């Protein structure tokens, strides 16, 4: 097990082993007797408690704010200065035109799910196979180099990916594949998102494979399996729970990403209606290259520019709440996978 920061995210189960470490290094008795150190202990205990309470209060406060403003769209709460909307007209409608009093958010929900799903489809196999390579196949100098490169990639600001996509990838694809039609849409956004989440998946997948007992690898090879058979039939199945965790964490990062996607997706809230109207391309191309929008892109564009308390503003907060719940489900899912992990 290495000590990269991600490893603490991977397996909450590992935390349970901490008391054992405590037993290994008992404090000498005379140290405990000292009055000064007893006081220091008590005060530091209080400081730690205060910090953790502060964090909990902050997160709880933000969640409360989000929920209060979001629910104000549907209930006559104090934060609502316009009309109250019904759940059906918000969650079951594809028509988003706030100036004309239509607030259907399905295009954004659908857009978020589609773009993150596509991104995962691209990133998961790449990331997992790179993880196998780094953990099991690469020579040691390359292993440390690859790890460092992956850590560096995580640190690139998302707006850089966005600008790269907007000024290089979009014109290139539009010019070479689409006869100069705009290339904005799910395809390019998912591609850029996948580049952004691959490092996360690679780091976690590498940890997963390095954490497997050597006996699995050695045993299968001793029984005569080839390198490929050992990886495909033994190592990947054994690491599956943690690989799933890696994918879900990647998914969590992708679904919350706003900036990079916003710059290349085209941000068209009417994309579902538009896809029905379009007939000038094959359905497959149409689905990939229709300018679309997601929950995050709409939030980042409209939230600061809508009047407080209006139904429009409240629905945007409701979208934020929905996004929060989606992320919450993903986090709970990683917990679940972590618990099922074989020791």
């Amino acid at each position, binding site marked *: 097990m290495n000590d990269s920061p991600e490893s603490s995210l991977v397996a909450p189960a590992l935390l349970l082993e901490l008391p054992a470490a405590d037993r290994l290094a008992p404090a000498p008795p005379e140290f405990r007797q000292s009055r000064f150190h007893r006081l220091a202990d008590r005060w530091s205990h209080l400081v730690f408690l205060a910090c953790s309470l502060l964090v909990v209060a902050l997160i709880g406060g933000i969640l409360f704010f989000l929920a209060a403003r979001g629910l104000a769209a549907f209930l006559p709460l104090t934060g609502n*200065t*316009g009309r109250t909307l019904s759940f059906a007209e918000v969650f079951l409608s594809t028509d988003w*035109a*706030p*100036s*004309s009093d239509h607030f259907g958010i399905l295009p954004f929900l659908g857009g978020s799910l589609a773009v993150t799903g596509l991104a995962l489809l691209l990133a998961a196999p790449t990331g997992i196979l790179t993880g196998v390579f780094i953990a099991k196949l690469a020579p040691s100098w390359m292993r440390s180099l690859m790890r460092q490169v992956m850590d560096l990639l995580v640190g690139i600001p998302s707006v850089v990916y966005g600008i790269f996509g*907007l*000024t290089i990838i*979009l*014109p290139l694809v*539009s*010019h070479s594949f689409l006869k*100069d*039609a*705009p290339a*904005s849409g799910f395809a390019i956004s998912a591609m850029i998102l996948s580049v952004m989440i691959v490092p996360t998946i690679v780091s976690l997948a590498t940890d997963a494979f390095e954490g497997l007992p050597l006996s699995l690898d050695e045993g299968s090879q001793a029984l005569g399996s080839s390198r490929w058979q050992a990886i495909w039939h033994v190592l990947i199945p054994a690491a599956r729970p943690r690989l799933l965790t890696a994918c879900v964490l990647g998914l969590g990062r992708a679904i919350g990403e706003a900036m990079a996607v*916003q*710059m290349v997706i*085209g*941000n*068209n*809230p*009417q994309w579902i*209606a*538009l896809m029905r*109207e*379009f007939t000038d391309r094959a359905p497959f191309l149409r689905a990939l290259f229709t*300018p679309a*929008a997601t929950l995050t892109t709409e939030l*980042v*564009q*409209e939230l*600061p*520019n*809508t*009047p*407080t*308390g*209006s139904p*429009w503003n409240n629905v945007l907060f409701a979208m934020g709440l929905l996004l929060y719940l989606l992320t919450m489900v993903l986090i709970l899912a990683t917990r679940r996978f972590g618990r099922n992990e074989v020791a």
Partner: protein
Amino acid sequence: MKIRFLAQTLVAGLIALSASAQTVTVMGSTALGPIVKKAADDYMKLHPGVQIAVSGGGSMTGLNQVTSGGCNIGISDVFATPEQDKTGIKNFNIVVQPFTLIAHPGVGVKSLNAQQAEQVFTGKVTNWKEVGGKDQKIVRVIRPESSGTRAVQKKEILHGQEFSKDVLIQDSTGAVVTAVATTPGAVSFVELEHLEKNKARVAGIAYNGVECSNEGVKSGKYPIFSFGHAYTNPAKLTDPKVKQAVDGFLAFILTPAFQQDVVLKAGYLPVAYVKSLKTQL
């Protein structure tokens, strides 16, 4: 040395803090930000006792904040909503901003008349050859629904009709210009200053045969412009000293000297240029 410098700064800061009883806070439009910041710097030089803090956040943030009393002056590219007007906030038109149509350089069209421009954006026209250009699909690049520029465009170019569903939306004028410059067949609508800064990347399109220019707006030949607004909330301006500073600052922005020297240079037009007062955009 360092410690002494720090101490001096600290003392100077404290003195400034205790001496400057009036701090005026300005929030809102990032487009108007630079010009208001310049006005604030000039005004503070003339009136050493006054501090004016200008921050961004967007037009609607400015309007929301001035309505709730979160800032003294809210600057905005758009008029306040009827609900916000009901709270008694007061509008000052501080500058005039001309808008122009722009397109990717290769579309082969130099001018659109009012009807063509409308049809390009409503989606009745889908190819540049229908308005005298190349055989190239029209790609409409517009701003998000809450944008002030989009509101101006909808009223002035589309005469209140809905935009086509086939659009690309970009969050900021900078991103719009980049998208137009890199997408063949793209057309959009931006403030004149953004065309002038990007002449090499995008082409301006004349409206009814008139190219957008300061002179055109002044003479009344070029009809598409909007006001930059500063809103105050008299109900929340209870401190007479702050009120005096706010009034003085707004009066300063509207002095002929500031309007002629600074506003013109920054790509806006003096309010006095526009005689026909458009009250609501």
